[in-house]
């Protein structure tokens, strides 16, 4: 039999029908739904007189629009409230499990899926959200879809998809002290660029990847989309099985044993072919920081913004436009630049491990007075765990307050907006113009680098501080 990649194995097992010269009818095991990209899909369904085909394979949670304070009160913003209410009504009508606001499992859809054991190796998962790639950390084929496709999945549990090409990204060796999964992913994106993996599905491999925790793996797969990839995945191993075991929706007893035996087959066969391969050395990676308006514009924290001679002439205009927006100059050093906001959270870095890292770093220190910090857990479960572990007290002693879960300042659809012109060190995934509020200037970084900035009020090297 021809050797197959991990991606081939999962993909091929879900093809219902291959259409001549066209896409495949592709079966979806798990459909995740949130309030922003689903209302038009539900109304489309209704207009056709259809019901959701497999409500039992669908879960929903409001996350993008919700406030991160006083969640027990009605949502003040009328349009946000209407979207959240519409989601609730659509779920009720269609018998879909909803992890509603103020319930114990509410949170960012990509945090909730894995922590409840909905996300499992070998599955196909989609959501009307590009960071669905997060779930690939479990050896699943997971990717974001548009609202028309959400409607297709609701109606038929399938979408039409051409098979993407395959890319292998290997990172060998050991990450330096102070360098995390977030730095690894920002590094890879800075090397490949924002369109470097467009049209591909990525598999991450190598010792630096397999030694990551599940949280770290999710951070890496989460940002695959930032280099244009359809998704990213990592072969499941003992770390994966240990994470999944015992979670609410994970298989139990005999079913568990059977499932693990099957999941152990999910790896790329010797000799399997990729369309493109890249290899990086973990030891080359520093704590990373972005300085521009797309996630590919990243550098090691001790480095400088490129000079004119280092930029392709055709890209110079866009590059300068981006630096203008950021208020930076060609060749600027990043260390020592003043910052105003710190955001720790999002589906990239809003998990318990991220809060642990941040809390351990700021423990016994004090937040800089000039910094406004938003520490936002990714879900109610993360919040509960942080309280249980005493992280909240550590944060409070250091001058930080933990807010309530949600997407928050990652895309600023609620009140958590960075004001125009202000600098924000953010653990989220996008530094696009206006992403954190009109005119806001975002610098993407790891939770540890965010902690260093929050304590000093300027861009600081976490390796020298902690």
């Amino acid at each position, binding site marked *: 039999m021809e050797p197959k990649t991990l991606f081939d194995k999962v993909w091929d*097992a879900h093809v*219902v*029908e291959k*259409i001549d*010269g*066209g*896409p495949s*009818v592709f*079966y979806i095991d798990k459909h995740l739904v949130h309030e*922003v*990209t689903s*209302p*038009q899909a539900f*109304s*489309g369904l209704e*207009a*056709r007189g259809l019901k959701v085909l497999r409500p039992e394979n669908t879960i929903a949670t409001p996350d*993008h629009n919700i406030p991160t304070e006083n969640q027990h009160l009605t949502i003040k*913003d009328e*349009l*946000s409230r*209407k*979207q959240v209410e519409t989601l609730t009504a659509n779920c009720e009508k269609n018998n879909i499990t909803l992890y509603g606001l103020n319930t114990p499992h509410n949170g960012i859809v990509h945090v909730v899926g894995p922590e409840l054991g909905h996300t499992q190796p070998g599955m196909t998962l989609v959501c*009307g*959200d*590009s960071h*669905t790639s997060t779930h690939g950390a479990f050896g699943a084929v997971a990717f*974001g*879809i*548009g*609202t*028309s*496709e959400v*409607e*297709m999945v609701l*109606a*038929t*549990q*399938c*979408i*039409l998809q*051409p098979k993407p090409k395959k890319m292998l990204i290997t990172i060998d060796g050991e990450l330096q002290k102070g360098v995390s999964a977030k730095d690894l992913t920002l590094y890879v994106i800075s090397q490949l660029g*924002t*369109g470097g993996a*467009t049209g591909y599905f990525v598999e991450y491999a190598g010792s630096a990847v397999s030694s990551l925790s599940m949280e770290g793996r999710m951070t890496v797969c989460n940002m695959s989309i930032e280099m*244009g990839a359809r998704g990213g995945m990592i072969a499941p191993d003992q770390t994966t099985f240990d994470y999944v075991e015992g979670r609410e929706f994970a298989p139990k007893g005999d079913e568990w044993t059977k499932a693990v035996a099957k999941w152990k087959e999910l790896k790329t066969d010797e000799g399997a072919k990729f369309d493109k391969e890249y290899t990086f050395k973990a030891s080359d990676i520093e704590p990373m920081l972005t300085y521009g308006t*797309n996630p590919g514009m990243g550098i090691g924290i001790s480095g400088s913004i490129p000079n004119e001679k280092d930029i392709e002439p055709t*890209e110079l205009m*866009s590059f300068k*436009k981006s630096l203008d927006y950021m208020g930076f100059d060609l060749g600027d050093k990043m260390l020592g630049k003043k910052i105003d906001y710190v955001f720790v959270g999002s589906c990239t870095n809003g998990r318990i491990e991220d809060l642990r890292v941040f809390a351990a770093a700021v423990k016994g220190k004090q937040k800089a007075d000039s910094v406004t910090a938003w520490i936002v857990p990714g879900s109610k479960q993360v919040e509960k765990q942080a309280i249980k572990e005493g992280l909240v007290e550590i944060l409070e002693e250091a001058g930080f307050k933990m807010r309530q879960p949600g997407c928050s300042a990652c*895309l*600023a*659809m609620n009140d958590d907006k960075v004001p*125009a012109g202000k600098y924000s060190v953010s653990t989220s995934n*996008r530094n*696009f*113009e*206006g*992403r954190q509020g*009109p005119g806001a200037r975002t610098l993407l970084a790891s939770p540890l680098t965010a902690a260093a900035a929050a304590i000093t009020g300027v861009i600081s090297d976490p390796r020298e501080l902690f």
Partner: protein
Amino acid sequence: MSVDKFITLESSYVPLPVENVDTDQIIPARFLKATSREGFGENLFRDWRYAPDGSENADFVLNKSEYSGQILVGGKNFGSGSSREHAAWAIHDYGFKVVVSSFFADIFQNNALNNGVLPVTVSPEFLNDMFKSVEADKSQKLVVDLEKQTISLNGKSEEFVINPYKKNCLLNGFDDIDFLLNRKEKIEAFEAKN
């Protein structure tokens, strides 16, 4: 929702020579609170089109009356970022039927096709010619022929690639859901087997 039929289009075009135009620029997140598909055109490129006080930014191409037409021509890596279909809805609602670039982000391309907006990928040279020609003559026209899969400027043509299935859908105004609904038995058989 069925999509508009698309066969050929001859139109002047609007140049936007910026690379990496992401979905947060096409339609900023704060305008995603609607529960219907209509009306997004008003906020297309909102933060480039208008100053924070709501006044028009005279430098932005959509505010320059010399430029018009049903074709938007953007720089490399158009539509990167989120999966929000609102980006395609905004472009469609504003009145564009074709978006041209030398490189498109995947999900955006799918979303456009699902809404009857044709993404046309051209060579970097051809893209450059388009930007130059329209500077010289703002009423410069492009001809897009979906049947033949060609785009022409001043008698110079380039072929573009489109999946044959998607082409057929656009030419006939079919959509994917109808297609999938007709596969119900196959889908159920697949479920029974797995």
